[in-house]
C-alpha cells in the first residue's frame, strides 16, 4: 500500500457528488461509473476501463480531471513504446556537454555523480505524474496496444506509485495520482495488471442515458429529436453490423441533424445521413435494408 503518501486527487465526498460533479463538466455518468470513480479515489487504485471504441472511456478520465481541477497527464500507448518514452530518459546531449565543458576534468566519481543527477533526467509521462506536486490525473490510453512485456513497466508505478532508477534510487510519489487505463480489448491484458486495478466495463449506454448524453452534449437539440436519435441508434445496434454506431457517432449524427435543421426524423432523412453513423458500406446497406426496407 502507499503508506503515508498524501493522496493527490481531490478527495471526493460521495458517489452522488461524483455523479453531479461529472454532470457539471458535461459527462453523463450512470451510478456504476460514478461508484467506480469514487472507489478509485478512496482505495487509491488505478481504474482499468475496457469497452468498445467510442463509448467515452478517454473522455471519462478527462472529465474527472476537469471536475477535480487536476492536471491531466496522458500517455498514449502504441506498439514499440518503451521505457525511454514512458518512464524517463537520461539527457545524453546535456551529459555530453557537461563532460566536455570542463577540460580540467574532475575525478570520475564526481563527474558521474553529477551527470546522473536529476538535472539530467528527462521525465516522461509516468514519472512526471508521480513527481507532480499538484493534483494529477494520469491517463494511460489504449494500453492494449503495447506488448505484453512493456505492460510490466507499469506494474511498479501502478501498485507502489514509485519508479526505480538504477543511478538515482527510488523515486516515490509526492502525491498519489489518480490513474485511468483504457483498453479496446484487442488482446487479453495480463493478470498481474488486472489484479492491481479496479475494472470498469463500458458498453453502449441504455436508451435513457444516451438520450441524456445527446441532450447534454448537443447544443440546441430538442427533446423529441434527442429521443428519436437514441431510439434509432438503439435499433441500429440490434442489427448485426461490423461496427455498431458508437456514442461519439451518435453525437456527430445529432449535430448533423441540428445543422440540417431537421426537427423530426423520417426514413428519408435517415437514409441521407446514415453515413455519419456507419462507416462501412455493407453496414449502411444492411441497415437501410433492415430499418428502412429499401436498398441503399
Amino acid at each position, binding site marked *: 500500500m502507499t503508506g503515508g503518501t498524501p493522496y493527490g486527487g481531490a478527495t471526493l465526498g460521495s*458517489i452522488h457528488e461524483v455523479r453531479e460533479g461529472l454532470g457539471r463538466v458535461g459527462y453523463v455518468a450512470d*451510478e*456504476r461509473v460514478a*461508484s*467506480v470513480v*469514487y*472507489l478509485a479515489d*478512496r*482505495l487509491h*487504485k488505478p*481504474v*482499468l476501463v*475496457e*469497452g468498445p471504441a467510442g463509448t467515452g472511456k478517454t473522455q471519462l478520465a478527462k472529465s474527472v480531471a476537469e471536475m477535480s481541477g487536476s492536471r491531466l497527464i496522458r500517455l498514449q500507448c502504441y506498439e514499440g513504446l518503451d521505457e525511454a518514452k514512458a518512464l524517463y530518459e537520461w539527457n545524453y546531449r546535456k551529459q555530453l556537454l557537461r563532460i566536455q565543458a570542463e577540460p580540467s576534468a574532475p575525478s570520475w566519481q564526481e563527474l558521474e555523480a553529477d551527470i546522473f543527477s536529476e538535472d539530467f533526467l528527462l521525465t516522461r509521462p509516468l514519472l512526471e505524474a508521480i513527481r507532480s506536486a499538484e493534483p494529477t490525473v494520469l491517463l494511460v490510453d489504449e494500453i492494449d496496444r503495447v*506488448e505484453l512485456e512493456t505492460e510490466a513497466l507499469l506494474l511498479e508505478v501502478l501498485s507502489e506509485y514509485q519508479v526505480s532508477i538504477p543511478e538515482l534510487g527510488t523515486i516515490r510519489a509526492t502525491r498519489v495520482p489518480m490513474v485511468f487505463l483504457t483498453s479496446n*480489448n*484487442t*488482446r*487479453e491484458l495480463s*493478470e498481474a495488471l*488486472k*489484479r492491481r*486495478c*479496479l*475494472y*470498469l*466495463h463500458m*458498453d453502449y449506454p441504455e*436508451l435513457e442515458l444516451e438520450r441524456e448524453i445527446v441532450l447534454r452534449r448537443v447544443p440546441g437539440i430538442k427533446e423529441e429529436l434527442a429521443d428519436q436519435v437514441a*431510439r*434509432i441508434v*438503439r*435499433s441500429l445496434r*440490434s442489427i*448485426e453490423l*461490423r461496427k455498431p454506431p458508437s456514442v461519439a457517432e451518435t453525437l456527430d449524427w445529432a449535430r448533423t441533424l441540428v445543422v440540417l435543421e431537421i426537427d423530426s426524423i*423520417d*426514413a428519408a432523412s*435517415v437514409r441521407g445521413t446514415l453515413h455519419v453513423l456507419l462507416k462501412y458500406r*455493407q453496414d449502411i446497406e444492411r441497415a437501410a435494408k*433492415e*430499418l*428502412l*426496407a429499401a436498398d441503399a
Partner: protein
Amino acid sequence: MLELLSGFIGELRSAGLPVSLTEHLDAAQAVHHVPLEDRDALKAALGATLVKSGAHWPAFETAFEVYFSPHVAKGDATEDTEKSSHVAATPAGGGPAPMSAAELAAMLLRVMRQGDRTLVAALARAAVDRYAGMEPGRPVGGTYYLYRTLRNLDLEGLLERLLDEAHREQELTVFEERLLADEYRARIAALRGAIEAEIRRRLVADRGAQALAKSVRRSLPEDVDVMHASREELAALQRMLHPLSRKLAVRLGRKRRHRRRGPLDFRATVRRSLSTGGVPVEPRFRHPAPSKPEIFVIADVSGSVASFARFTLQLVYAISTQFSKVRSFVFVDGIDEVTHVFDDADDPSVAVRRITAEADVVWLDGHSDYGHALEEFDRRWGEEITSRATVLVLGDARNNYHASGARVLEELRRKARHVYWLNPEPRQYWGSGDSIVDEYAVHCDGVVECRTLRQLERFVSDLV
C-alpha cells in the same frame, strides 16, 4: 458482512470466475466505502474489484442477485420466514386477492403500451402470484416457475397484439413500425427480467442463497457447451466470436514477427563487414519464411452439430490471413464445396448463414453418412491435397451405422501434413451408440474434444 462476502466469492469461483486473494481483500475494503443500503453502489463496488472481464459480468450479476437479494441483504431472519409463509398463504404484492386472468391481461397490455418503469415491477409481481404456482420447499429450479409464468402471459404473441393495435390507430411506415417494434421488444424484455428477478427473490426467501446459487449458476460464455446452448447463449457466443478472432489474429501475427531468426545471410554479413574493415562483427540473418498452412475444413452440418461447425468455420475464416489458403466443404450425406460463399461475402457470419441455404449436401435421406461424404470428397478433391495441407474434420462421427469410409482418412493422412478431428461431443460419449470416432482416430494426428469456445480457441492457436 465479511462472511457473506466470502460465501459470495466462493460462489463466483465455482462459476468459473478467477478471483484471487488480493481481489478478495480489495472487495472487503471496497465495501467499507460504500453505503450498504445502496444496492447499486454495492454491486458496482464488488463488480469493480472482483470481475475483470466484461464477458464475466452476467455470471456475476446472477450470483449477486441471489446473494444480495433485497431482503437477504437486510439480514433479518424473522422477516425471511414470515415472507416465505407469505408466499404460500396469501400471495404477496399488496393486493388482497390475485388478479383474474382478464384483469392481468388488460394490465399487461396497458403497462406495455405506456412503458412505465415503476408499473413493470408491480406487474411482474402480480403475474408471478397468478401463474407461477410457487410452493415453498418444492425442489424445482426457477426455470420451471419462469416457464409457467411466461407461457401463461404469452409474451411472444404480445408483440403482435401491440403492433396490431398500433396499426389500427394510425398508418405506420416500415421505418416507424420497426422503431415501435424495437421499443416494445425492449419493454417486454424488461418485463421478463422483472419476472425472473421476482421469482428469484422468492426462491431465495424460501431456500436461502447458497442452495439456490447452485441451481441458477450461469456458465461463462467461453465455457458454454456449443451443442446444447440456448438461443441467448448462442447469441452471446456470436458476439464474443468477433473480438476473439481479432485477438487471435493479433496474437498470432505478433508471435510470427518476434521469431525472426532465419539461417545466416552470408552475403549481407560480408557486405556489412566492409564498414568494420572486413571483419564480420555483426552477423546477419535471413528472415524466415513464415510457414502458412493450407487448411481444408470438412464440416458436418447435420442438425445436431451444425452450430458447432458454423462457429469453427467462422473462426477459421476470421483469421484466414494466417493461412495461405482456406477451403471449406460441408456435408450431411452428400458433400459440397462452399469456399466461394466465403470469398463472396465480406463477413464470415453472413457467409455461414448462406451456406445452409445454398450448399447441396443431401444425397439420399439427409442423415449423416460420413462414409459416403468422405468417399465423395476423395473422388472429387482428393488430388488437391498436398503435403502442405492440414485437414480438419468437424463432426461427432455419429454415422447412423453406415460404412465408415476410414480408408479415405488413411489416404488423406498419407498425403496431407496433418489430419485433425474436432469432436463437439464430450469425451465420455465417444464410441457409444453409433459414434465411430475411434475408428477414425487411428488415422488422425489428433482427435480433439471441442465443446466450448475456450477449447476451440486453444486448438486454433496451437494449429498455426
